[in-house]
């Protein structure tokens, strides 16, 4: 393997690791029936996006974007890009808000359905639907 290919792999390894993490989260969301596990998967997915953004802001040889207290910025010092950090700070806080809302919804679902498994919720729904159909058929039969 020549050095160009190796550089390419090393330079892009971060993206591939984040994709691996993101797909782990996606798999949990799709494959698991437990609602709490779905939220955990969504959080893992979200974290991978955060890490992708932060890695885009990195500059080789750069340091954290904090200036000296006297604000005399040395032009030779390289700072990493602060903009992705700001965007992700906002995203983290919004993410925890959506997570807490999702968990509150799970608590309510558990209260109504006495389960947090997707299949069992579907069973309850089907049973309710069937009994409603039966009741309406009975009512129609009585009227005719």
């Amino acid at each position, binding site marked *: 393997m020549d050095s160009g290919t190796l550089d390419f792999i090393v330079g892009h390894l971060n993206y591939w690791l984040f994709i691996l993490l993101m797909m782990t989260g996606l798999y949990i969301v799709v494959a698991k*029936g437990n609602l709490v596990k779905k939220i*955990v998967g969504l959080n893992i997915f979200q974290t991978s996006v955060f890490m992708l953004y932060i890695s885009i802001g990195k500059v080789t040889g750069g340091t954290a974007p*904090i200036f000296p207290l006297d604000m005399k910025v040395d032009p030779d010092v390289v700072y990493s890009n602060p903009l992705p950090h700001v965007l992700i700070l906002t995203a983290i*806080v919004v993410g925890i808000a959506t997570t807490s809302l999702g968990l509150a919804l799970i*608590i309510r679902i558990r*209260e109504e359905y006495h389960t947090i498994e997707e299949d069992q919720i579907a069973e309850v729904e089907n049973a309710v639907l069937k009994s409603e159909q039966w009741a309406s058929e009975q009512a129609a039969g009585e009227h005719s």
Partner: protein
Amino acid sequence: MDAVDVAFTEAAVGAGISTVLMLGTLALTARSERSSSRSSFVPLLAVLVTGAALVYGTLDMPSFGQSDAPAQTHVGPDYLERIPHEVGVPNAVTAILASYRGYDTLGETAVVFAAGIGVLMLISGLRTRRRKEEDDPDTGGSA
């Protein structure tokens, strides 16, 4: 990756608050998971296809830490140049968050406020409903 502010926030929020929320939810709901009978082949296939498409998409991305990447040549350095004499706050992330993107942060707090109200409306009265259910299991139960 030089993101000290994000590291602190993620440590406090991601490791602290979300763990507490998860454990609280688990305490209020079920502790064990019922084993699912569904096959995991279709989700695995979907995930692999999506992952392959994403990896294909990264082939055009700039390398990690590349200083002439598009993200490093437009707005980012402009902020770093302006902040020392326009805002005067040593931490560039704080300066952007509170000054240049102040309305964004205001909107963010609005989102958190709305989510807090939503959570309160969803789970308020949980204890009274539960007590009613225990006293009178016939009428207080589920619909």
